[in-house]
């Protein structure tokens, strides 16, 4: 591989590149789905290729191919330079990456049990047992249980002298129960919605989920939701469980702090950001309790790695400090605009995609409350768990989320179950209303394996650490 990388770098330079990096990526994926008591889909995929990123005539070019041969490396490196020259026809100035980033190293995700060494029979048996435990509950219509494993081998070399090898391993799993009644459908998921929760790590991640043990509860809740009352509209105090808060952080803090969005380079797709450059260091993002960091070193986080795809080492960077907006997610090129060094967030969705700024693990630091005390301290509220629906405007201000399940809180006690609960608000006002966050015992890192961004589309795997938190006087139960 190193020979091919050196060849690609040399070819790019011979054709006129002033900077080049070559990234070879090999991925192995295993997905297993059991549905209604039967293995529905089991597939193993292998994918490999390389991408060449260059600067020539002061502009970017990128080309990629699945064929790992010397001839193809030559062709693609030359193509990348030709594309950069075409880019240079419509440029304002030369790309400035700032000082060289020269790193030589390796990184391996800490793994206790290699998920690809666990027999398929064991995995299928686990899913069938979880599925069976859900289907035992009367009233359940559709059940689904799934596992997903990913191993990524990456080698990155650059004309600045960087040479990095990484092996990243992810394990994910989850169960879903769908209950169908007259004019109503309700779903419950565990540990997270959209099929699974996912972490970096080995099969121990799956063992820790206890999918079988949680299956009856999930199925019973789905059935109970059919008859539960609709969440009434109004202004209420809400407590968001960690799984829902993870997506709130993702949409309302993670995306708006991506500096490429702020600088306009995502305008044609996902949009821009309300966190404009003038706000850094002065804008009150939330209450004093709110401290949010981007931490690519969080153990088990789905956004945990050794180096980003520009070869910058993983870092922990503050975004919001005690309510004050203090920093962005950056790349080499964008950090230069702020006079900073990159905080290492450039990642690509495979060999055939250009690295772009992605969330790492965007974590809300824990507070001091226990969940029991927080509920007891809430006179009139709603406890909301597990995301069902999400939407936010293109500057990340107006949002509306729906959750799978909610419970009313009256007089400090959890009361009746509510279905179809939604809440809506504007990002800074919402985070300003945060007056309590649960402690580290309630804090965990959640995986979001479906973060879409970029053109052509890229899907990133990112993490969010969160503990349940309370928000005062939030609009809930949007009516139609």
């Amino acid at each position: 591989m190193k020979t091919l990388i050196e060849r690609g770098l040399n070819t790019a330079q011979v054709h006129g590149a002033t900077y080049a990096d070559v990234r070879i990526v090999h991925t192995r994926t295993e997905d297993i789905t059991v549905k209604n008591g039967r293995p529905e889909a089991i597939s193993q995929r292998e994918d490999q290729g390389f991408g060449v990123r260059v600067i020539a005539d002061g502009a970017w070019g990128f080309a990629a191919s699945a064929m790992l041969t010397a001839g193809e490396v030559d062709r693609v490196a030359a193509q990348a330079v030709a594309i950069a020259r075409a880019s240079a026809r419509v440029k304002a100035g030369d790309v400035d990456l700032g000082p060289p980033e020269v790193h030589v190293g390796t990184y391996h995700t800490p793994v206790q049990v290699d998920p690809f060494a666990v027999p398929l029979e064991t995995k299928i048996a686990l899913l069938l047992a979880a599925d069976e435990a859900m289907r035992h509950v009367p009233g359940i219509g559709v059940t689904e249980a799934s596992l997903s494993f990913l191993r990524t081998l990456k080698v990155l070399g650059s004309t600045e002298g960087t040479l990095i090898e990484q092996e990243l391993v992810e394990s994910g799993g989850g169960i879903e129960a769908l209950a169908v009644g007259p004019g109503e459908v309700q779903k419950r998921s565990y540990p997270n919605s959209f099929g699974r929760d996912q972490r970096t790590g080995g099969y121990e991640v799956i063992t820790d989920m206890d999918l079988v043990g949680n299956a009856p509860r999930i199925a019973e809740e789905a059935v109970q939701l059919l008859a539960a009352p609709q969440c009434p509209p109004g202004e209420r105090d809400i407590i968001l469980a960690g799984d829902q808060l993870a997506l709130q952080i993702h949409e309302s803090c993670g995306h708006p702090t991506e500096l490429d969005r702020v600088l306009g380079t995502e305008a044609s797709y996902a949009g821009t950001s309300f966190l404009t450059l003038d706000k850094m260091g002065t804008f009150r993002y939330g209450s004093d309790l709110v401290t949010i960091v981007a931490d690519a070193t969080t153990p088990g986080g789905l956004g945990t790695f050794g180096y980003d795809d520009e070869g910058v080492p993983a870092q922990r960077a503050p975004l919001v400090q005690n309510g004050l907006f203090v920093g962005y997610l950056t790349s080499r090129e964008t950090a230069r605009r702020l006079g900073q060094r990159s905080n290492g967030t450039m990642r690509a969705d495979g060999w055939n995609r250009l690295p772009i700024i992605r969330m790492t693990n965007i974590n809300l630091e824990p507070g001091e409350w226990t969940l029991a005390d927080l509920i007891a301290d809430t006179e009139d509220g709603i406890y909301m768990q597990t995301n069902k629906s999400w939407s936010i405007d293109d500057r990340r201000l107006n949002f509306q989320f729906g959750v799978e399940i909610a419970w009313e809180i009256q007089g400090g006690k959890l009361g009746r179950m509510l279905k179809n609960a939604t809440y809506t608000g504007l990002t800074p006002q919402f985070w300003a209303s945060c007056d309590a966050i649960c402690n580290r015992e309630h804090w965990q890192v959640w995986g979001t394996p479906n973060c879409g961004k970029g053109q052509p589309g890229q899907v990133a795997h990112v993490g969010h650490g969160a503990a349940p938190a309370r928000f005062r006087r939030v609009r809930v139960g949007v009516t139609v």
Partner: protein
Amino acid sequence: MLGPERAKTIAGQVLGLSPADETEVLIQTGDAALTRFANSVIHQNVAEANVTVQVRVALGQQVGVASTNRLDDAALRDVVDTALRIARLLPPNPEFPGLPAPQPIPTVNAFVPATAATTPAYRAGAVGTICRLAVEQGLVASGAFSTGAYELVVANSRGVWAYHPYTRANLVTVIMSDDSSGWAQRSALDVSAMDTEAAGREAVDKALRSRHPVTIEPGAYTVILEEYAVADLIAYLAYMGFSAQAVQEGRSFMGGHLGEALVDAQVSIWDDGLDPTGLPLPFDFEGVPKRRVEFFERGVARGVIYDSYTAHKEPGQVSTGHAMPAGVTWGPQPSNLFMAPGSTSKEEMLRSTQRGLWVTRFHYTNIVHPLKTILTGMTRDGTFLIEDGEIARPVKNLRFTQNVLEALNDVAAIGRETMLLADEYWGATRMPALKIGRFWFSGATEF
């Protein structure tokens, strides 16, 4: 691009390596390029060449799937062995209907050499024009211009052989000022048929006209939805309920209602993978030819789409040619959605509206309740208040939360033109504009 002969050789090699009772080979190739621009300059310019080979084997009703993007002999042998190993581990799936038998595949020409041969310089030229149009007006241009040539190949041990080469070209642009934005999109098989400059002018015009937006109260408004906004709503409606899997699982609004009038009698919606005015795809990922499926015919719910699995569950039903690749669990999906045009121009819709909102497009639409067809999302890139039959002023963006079937039951007019729009990830739509009597906006944002 492999070409039909090389594709047939690879498929034959895989089929020859498999001792399974039934074997299917799905090959997808792509030579794709995209030029992306922002702040009126090109900031990303990429190209890729890729081939994936997916193998599905069946040992009786034990089914295994594996894929690779390598084409060497060892890799093809490995992918067959992996699929066989998976199949042997699994209990039989009584719902597996067997691989489809061969059927005549209609020929639709969807490959345009000019699109396949598009150069980075050509895309840069078109992008440069759009950027110039924006800069001349003191605006900022962003967008993406993609072109590519692709092949879809399906072969199986029962004799299916289906090969379809096709091209795609797609341009999107957002033009912005400090407090406004405008949008345009063009999609085509033939890049030379795309008027990219007209797209630039459309987005520039919208960005200029939406400057200095005012706040208005959320609530119920009559709306004129441009084709972009309609495409978004109908694509989500299809995802929520137009597949047999959704019906069979009890989560589709179509379930138990075929033959009933579910929407306004002016509304007809169908899927047709053979219509050359869409982005045609004559067969699905199982090699089954696509049939035209009517979802709503003059308001009446008529049918849903099937793959071989879902068809097998209903006696007498056959696949309509809407299977996704083996291993995808979402069930059948539409690929070319059409809505019948009406007889009204957008200008006539405007003149007939006393008070309402003009919506260019929606952003970040998502499902709130699939059975009740409730969606939420934001307006974006040009929202205007209509008063007395004219655009009165631009307004700040609003959040809608709306039952789509209710909206389609309140159709005041349908546009007489339709617009072809490629979906971001899969398929295409050809939709007209709509005027809806009452559309619910549940919130507002600050810009």
